């Protein structure tokens, strides 16, 4: 309903005057663009860009530490050595500790800060659904974890193939790399989901970091412990001895997300030696556990942000 002089008349009888503010008449990009923008912004925060120098210390430090074995091995290869670091397990303990620190330190930066400063109403008053927000955060953080895991693998690969002299050797390396990259994807997806889910429970970054660290570290040590106690001592160089370890040892890995992913790897045919005994016939259980953990984390995230009372 518009009146003649450009003023807008409202049903109650009041008038909104047109004092020359320009109405935006250009294109409106819609939900996909919103999600993309949020993903980009969150990705930058998860590595500390745009937050000052101190925010970058932990991400950069963890990245450097993670790349060290790859670089060291590449240098050794250049001097005539062999590739000792496997693509699919990398240096398992190092990867575990680096990822614990990275996820515990950075997941709260992505979600806890917004909770603490109560900016969620600003987000949700835009044309996006309640699930777009955690989805965007999840995509961004998964990409960040993916970079942290896969880039060292690629460095290792490049270091190896530059010394390879035949196309056959290059193809061998590529064949070995692909499963490693896929395992890395599993890692990134699961850790990002669990990290964000735990962090979304609180607005205080310190609690979030503490909870994430406790969960990951506690379960990791526990898994190793239960496996050793369960009789998984006798693991010689033959890693394909399926079913050789007692049941307790083979099930111990279900306790920790890290060993769960590794159990899935071994179930799907991975042959490199992992931190725990091969699951053998319990392999499918590891697959189920992986899906359960992932579903649980995603469900928690969705439920958390769907609540109307969040502010």
């Amino acid at each position, binding site marked *: 309903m518009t009146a003649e002089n450009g003023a807008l008349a409202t049903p109650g009888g009041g008038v909104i005057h047109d004092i020359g503010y320009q109405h935006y008449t250009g294109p409106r990009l819609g939900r996909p663009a919103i999600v993309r923008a949020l993903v980009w912004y969150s990705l930058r925060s998860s590595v500390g860009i745009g937050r000052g120098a*101190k925010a970058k210390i*932990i991400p950069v*430090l963890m990245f450097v*530490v993670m790349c060290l074995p790859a670089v060291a091995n590449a240098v050794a290869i250049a001097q005539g050595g062999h590739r000792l670091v496997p693509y699919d397990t990398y240096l398992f*303990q*190092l990867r575990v*500790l680096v990822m*614990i*620190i990275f996820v*515990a*330190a950075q997941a709260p930066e992505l979600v806890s800060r917004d909770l603490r400063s109560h900016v969620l109403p600003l987000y949700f008053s835009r044309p996006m659904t309640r699930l777009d927000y955690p989805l965007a955060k999840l995509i961004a953080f998964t990409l960040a974890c993916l970079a942290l895991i896969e880039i060292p693998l690629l460095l290792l690969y490049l270091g190896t193939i530059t010394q390879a002299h035949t196309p056959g050797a290059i193809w061998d390396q590529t064949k070995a790399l692909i499963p490693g990259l896929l395992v890395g994807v599993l890692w990134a997806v699961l850790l990002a989901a669990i990290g964000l889910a735990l962090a979304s429970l*609180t607005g*205080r970054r*310190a*609690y979030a*970091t*503490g*909870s994430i*660290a*406790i969960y990951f*570290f*506690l379960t990791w*040590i*526990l898994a*190793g*412990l*239960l496996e*050793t*106690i*369960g*009789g998984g*001592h006798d693991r010689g160089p033959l890693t394909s001895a399926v079913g050789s370890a007692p049941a*307790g040892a083979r099930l111990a890995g279900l306790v920790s997300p890290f060993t769960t992913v590794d159990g899935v790897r071994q179930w799907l045919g991975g042959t490199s030696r992992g931190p725990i005994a091969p699951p053998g016939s319990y392999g499918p259980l590891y697959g189920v556990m992986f899906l359960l953990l992932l579903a649980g984390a995603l469900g928690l995230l969705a439920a958390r942000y769907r609540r109307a009372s969040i502010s």
Partner: protein
Amino acid sequence: MFTGQAGTVASITLRATIGRKRAFLFVLPSAILLLVTVLLKIAHPSAPDWPSAVLGDFGFAVVLPLTALIIGTSVLGAEIDDGSVVHLLATPVRRSTVILSKFAVAAVLTMIFVAVPELIAAVIATGGVTKLAEGLFVGALAGSVIYNAVFVMISVLTTRAIAVGLLYLLVWESLLGNFVSGARILSVGQYSLGIANSIAADSHLNAHLGVGTAVVMGAIVTAATLALASRRLAAFSLKGDAV
């Protein structure tokens, strides 16, 4: 409840620390330790040395440091972060009194939430008050003291105390401590294990330091970190407005 300056600081700290939701995180690791111990005891595993693995590798390497981290950083960290520590500091109380009172609360809480459960778990696992149980208990008491001194200091020095503490525990103590023997001389976990081992004499505890070294270094680290924390608290600055 308590009177006197130190008592007042301690009583406020105690109420602030226990009253929060964070208290759930203190109890969790020890609860898991007890649960795992009971379950394993029922399951009768064949490995005879499983108690020292569970109580040493899990109890000392995970439960003790992580719980001390949460407790040690929360007795002072949150107050510095939101500025409410100003109400303590705008009084003539000596800064060292503030630090020592908060440290004492943290150490005692850690002893209650870690050392006692560790003792109980050890008694359950070994079937009685064995040398192992005694050693682990005393080692956990020492660890409660030394770890909390370090973490209280870290929370004065930085607002990201938990992340820094985590870096120390995971990178310095776990990763480097396993591979670089020089790092062990500066590892609080090793001090605790060394003290525990002097009573328990169990090679599965992975203690690499003798008791003399452990006690001396532990005392030095405790004193030095608390002194540094007091000095830094004396220079506590409030940030201005929109600068």
